[in-house]
Each structure stands twice: as structure tokens, then as C-alpha cells.
């Protein structure tokens, strides 16, 4: 038998639905709010928990698939929990031309995870983005809101140790 109905309406016991509900308050009667709602949930939880998405669908009276469709379209959204610190290494053109590939190799070596992965201690999540907009300092990465420029493979260790 089809289970999706059940899955979509199932209730996760320990999930803080109130938090989602209070986030929704700002958006309920407005249009074009799907992306901002997801941004707000991610801001709160650090990622998009499945129960939250199901709850949003229910409250907005739209199919869960639609919510997932938006959540998976944009690079910004994450369906898995993420580490304490988010590393975003730039793979933009300027950084590419100035040799970010070597920095990326070294990064994987240091963290022991691939792009998109989180270290087992939940300390770092390693992502790649296309251009941070600080191309003058290529190669560049951001850790949380801080930008680090003119990267070299040997500089990584010192930077990571600051976190």
C-alpha cells in the first residue's frame, strides 16, 4: 500500500514543532514566502529537518513534494545536519586560475572528508561555492562569516586551528 500519505502526516515525537510554527508567523499571509521560510528554518536548526518541511507543507496547504522541490533546487539548503563551522572554499574562475585545486586537495587531507561532508566530531562541514566575490584575493575561502584570501596549501592548518 502506498505509504506516502502516512509518512507525510507522521509526527516526530521529539521535534520542536512550536519553533517552526513561530517562525511561520511572519509569513503566513504573504506571497512568495517559500524561500524565506526555508531560510528561516535553516537559520534556526542549522539545516532543514524533514519534520519541519512536512509541517510547513501542512500549514501552507501544499504538497510536501513542492517544499522538497524548492529545498533541493537551491545550493543554500541542506537536508542533513551540519558541522559547527562551515567552510566554503571558492571554486570560481579567478580562484581556479590561481590554483585553488591544490588547496582543495590539502583541505580534504586535513579534514578527512569529501566536499559536502562533515567531520565526525561535527566541527567542520566542508563545502565548495562558486565565487565569494573576493576574487582579487584568490584563492579564497569563507569559514562562517570570515573570509580568508591568498590561500596556500600550507596555510590551511594554521587557519583551521583558529576554530
Amino acid at each position, binding site marked *: 500500500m502506498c505509504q506516502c500519505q502516512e509518512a507525510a502526516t507522521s509526527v516526530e515525537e521529539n521535534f520542536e514543532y512550536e519553533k517552526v510554527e513561530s517562525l511561520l508567523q511572519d509569513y503566513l499571509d504573504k506571497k512568495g514566502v517559500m*524561500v524565506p521560510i526555508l531560510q528561516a528554518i535553516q537559520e534556526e536548526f542549522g539545516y532543514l529537518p524533514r519534520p519541519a518541511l512536512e509541517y510547513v507543507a501542512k500549514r501552507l496547504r501544499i504538497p510536501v513534494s513542492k517544499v522538497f522541490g524548492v529545498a533541493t533546487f537551491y545550493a543554500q539548503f541542506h537536508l542533513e545536519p551540519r558541522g559547527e563551522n562551515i567552510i566554503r572554499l571558492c571554486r570560481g*574562475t579567478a580562484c581556479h*586560475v590561481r590554483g585553488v585545486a591544490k588547496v582543495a586537495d590539502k583541505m580534504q587531507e586535513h579534514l578527512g572528508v569529501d566536499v559536502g561532508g562533515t567531520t565526525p566530531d561535527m566541527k567542520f562541514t566542508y563545502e565548495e561555492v562558486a565565487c565569494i566575490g573576493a576574487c582579487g584575493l584568490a584563492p579564497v575561502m569563507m569559514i562562517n562569516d570570515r573570509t580568508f584570501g591568498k590561500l596556500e596549501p600550507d596555510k590551511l592548518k594554521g587557519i583551521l586551528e583558529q576554530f
Partner: protein
Amino acid sequence: MYEKQILICAGTGCISSGAYEVKEALDNELQKNNMEDKVRVILSGCHGFCEKGPLLIVYPEDIFYCEVTGEDMPELVEQHLVNGNIVERLLYKDPNTEQIVSNHEEILFYSKQKRLVLRNCGVIDPENIDEYIIRGGYQGLKNALDKDPSEVVEMIKNSGLRGRGGAGFPAGMKWEFAYRSQGDKKYVVCNADEGDPGAFMDRSTLEGDPHAVLEGIMIAGKAIGSDEAYIYVRAEYPLAIKRLRTAIAQAEEYGLIGENILNSGFNYKVNIKEGAGAFVCGEETALLASIEGERGMPRPRPPFPAVKGLWGKPTCINNVETLANVPLIMRKGVKWFTSVGTEGSKGTKIFALTGKVNNTGLCEVPMGITLREVVFDIGGGIRGGKKYKAVQIGGPSGGCIPESLLDLPIDFDSLTQAGAMMGSGGLVAMDEETCMVDLARYFLSFTQNESCGKCTPCREGTKRMLEILERITEGKGEAEDISRLEKIAVTVKDSSLCGLGQTAPNPILTTLRYFRDEYEAHIYDRRCPAGMCKELLSYYIDPEICNGCRACTKVCPVEAITGEKKEPHVIDEEKCIACGACLDRCKFGAVKTK
């Protein structure tokens, strides 16, 4: 009254190089010397010269210091501010002539520029509306409010202003369509998605002079009869978003946004939408879908947004830089604007100059300037004395332009003729060590990844082209691959739904046009002339240089390197997997590639 003003650049580049630490140290030093009420310290927007940041300028004498640190501040305060001696070691040194330059207008990076749109960037405090107003800000809006909307449209049409977001569509024509469209509600949308990976003009404009963009938006609003705007900004630009929010709040406080602006009966509301990281959302119809909260997928045009846009209402979409030009045209007039530029491309264009040049950063140049002037004068030539090869202009939609076309004037039409396009304004310089096939592969991997998947030519075509390019760079290219690439490229170009697919083949087509020999070297000789494609390199140790320190033997994962201690080593080519670990490791430069 302050005797001196010190500007510290607080653009993203300089902040990451430590601008805030410099400000803190400077404030401390001034306090120690009881100079706080004589010297005013201002955090400004981007000066464009990010490479040399943090930058610090002392006025009124206009002394330009670069790469300053917090530790330099005691000396700077004591020597310059107290004793009146310039601190020479912190001045800019020309990379080619080694000459020391103290005044920033004498630096070639600046002297060749024509900073109209960026006139306030790096000069004013972007978080203070008064500074914008003192420099003529909101005068253009006032002029527009005194006019009939059709007159405003006419002025922009006559100015010849073309869209700076990529395609170069005449802004006045777009405004006229939106003006003519019937609707109870109309929108202006400012496209600040800046998806080109290697460009940051819009970011710097928003960070350094947010009011100019707001003013442009409202003039557009007046012209087309709209009362509400959306600015769609990438979420990767937190500082730009913050400064925009501040600017909107200040303009509201001054009655420049809101109801009955300047007693003209004109009402305006400005919203900010944060983009969520998808390149295709820079495309106008996808952007609208994204604002509406949907997946950001493009739709066929017509109907054009000017007729049926945001929530079905007539919408005028313009790029940040396009809109930032508008207040100037309204204030200084059409004649003034058209005096700069070429026949078909009026005004200036901002470029993000990056890559292998000495001076990377943001520059605004008159249309019609040659590539040579941009790369060799403003950019200061290629770093490390390497040989110039090409520039890539226009990002993933643009193309590569070879050395033989260095004297090409930069304007919309001549770039298109050369197979590239103005695009957003990314300009990446490359030297002999950049492999053009690898560059094409790089751009294709970007567009393939960002293709939204809605139309087949783009979804499948980019994937197939990428596969071919990957195998060529891995040394597995086949003789027919070049003709296969050409065939797919033309098909994708002709039949894709939106601009992403229609322009995605450009990097391939231009590199094939100008650098076909590099493709052939990869395929037939299994050789990468630039020495970049790892799998095609063979490594050897120069016995003249190697001193037998054994460092390389320890990093080689396949034990391909042998030799006695203190004797030159050798690499067994049979065993070598060309990982490059030994090359990175060798401190003496004895490991080489051929």
C-alpha cells in the same frame, strides 16, 4: 573641524585582509596621541585595488598606503600625522618600474580608469546617507520626479544606456515596454544575483554606494509607473545585504522612500530578497520564479517580463550597474553621458580584473578602451614575468580572446563579433601556464552543474560536452572529439530554452577557434602545452639540482623514486602515477615536468 580624514577601505577584500584590525589599532593610536578630534577615520566601500589591501588613504594630502597592518599604525601616526613625514615603506611600488608612488591618481591602476558609477565607492561612508547627498545624491530622483514619466523614459533611451547584466539590451527600450504595459501594479526588480564565478562588480557597488542603486531603482519606478521594487541579492553577499538594509532605513527616515516622496505624490517601497545559490536564478524569468518562492527555473519568452512579470504584473528587470548609471544620467544629462564611450556602447563598464595579472581588482573603464590597456596598464601586466596568453571575458557565457586581439576595443558589439560577450564583466587574464582546454572544461563543469534541467539540449548537451572535455584533459581524447564538440556546441547554442544553455558553449567555441592547437596537442600528442593537465605530465628529476635529500621518496605513494642519499634521484616513469606530490614537496625545484 577635522584637520585630516583617513579612509580605510572596508570592502569584503580588505576586511578579509584585516581592515577592522587596522581601524582598531589606528583608533587606539589616535587616542594615545590625543588626536581623535583632529583626525576623522572613515570606513569606506571598495577602492577596487583589493589585491593590495588593506588600503588606507590620508586626506587632504591624498597619500595612498597599501598592505597596511595594525602593527604599522604607531609608526604611521607618529611619522605621518604628528611629524608630517610620509611612511615610504607602506607606499605602492609599481611592479614593473619599481617606482614608488604616493598619490593614488598616479598609480596606473587608477589613472587609466574613468570612475563614474564607482565615483563614490571608496570615497564616502556607505552607511551614511548624508555623504551620498552632499555629493549630488538623490538629485537625479528629484529631477525625475519633476518630469513626466514619458520624458524620463525618453532620456534613458537617448542616453543609449545598455544593460550591464549581460546581453546589453537598451535600457530605455525595456523601460518603454514596461511603461506602455497596462497594469494596476508594476514592479521594478534589481538583479543583484551576480552569478558569474569570478566577478564582483555588483557586490562592490552595493557595498560601497548602496544609495546610488536605490536612487536608480526609484527613477525606474517613476518612469514605468511602479510603486514597489525587489532587490534580489545573493545570500553569499552578507555585507551588501546589510548595507542595503541600512540604506533603505535611512532613506525612509529622510522621506526619500515611502509615501509622497519629496512632495511629489510619488510613493515607493523597496524589498530585499535573498537569493539562495543557483546560477540560473540570474536569468530574469528564473529570478522572478525564485522571488515568487518557486524553484528558480526559466520559462520561455514571450511574454516578456515587461508585459507579464512578477506575479503576472508588468516588471522591469535591470542589473545593479545599469541602475547605478541612471541617477547620473538624470542629474548630469544625456549629453554628458553620451560623451563617454563608443558609437554603439555609451558610458563606462566595470570589470572585475582577476587571474594572472599583477594588479587584480575592480576597475571602471570607458567603453572602447582596448584589452591591452586593461591588462597591461591597469592590470600592470602578467605577474612573475610570464607570457600573456589570453583573457576570458564574460564568465561562463563568454569566451576567450587571444593575444592577437589585444587591441580589440571593449564594447558590446566588438566582443560579440570576436565570439565572446560583455557578459557580467568578469575579466580573467591568463598566462602561458593556463591550459585552455582545462579552462573550457572548468566552465562546462560549472554550467553543467548549474543547468536547471528543464530543457533537454542544455541538460544533456552540457553533460556530453563535459564528458568529452574531461577525457581530453585526461589524455584519453579521440580524434573525432573536436568535431563532436563542435556539433554538440552548435546544437545546444541554437536550441536551448534560456540564456544559460544558449551561451554555455561559448567557452568551448572560442577556445576551439583560437586555441585549436592545444586541443590537438592533448589528443594527438598526449601532451598539455601549458603543463597543467596532471594526467598528461611526465615527471623527472633534474640531476643538476637534486641534492639527494630524500624528501620526495617519502611522499611518493607508489615508491617510484629511487636513489642513494646525497645522490641525485630518479623517477621510474613506468611506476609514476603523476600525482605531483614530489613536485610540491621538493624545496629545490629539482622535480620538473615535461
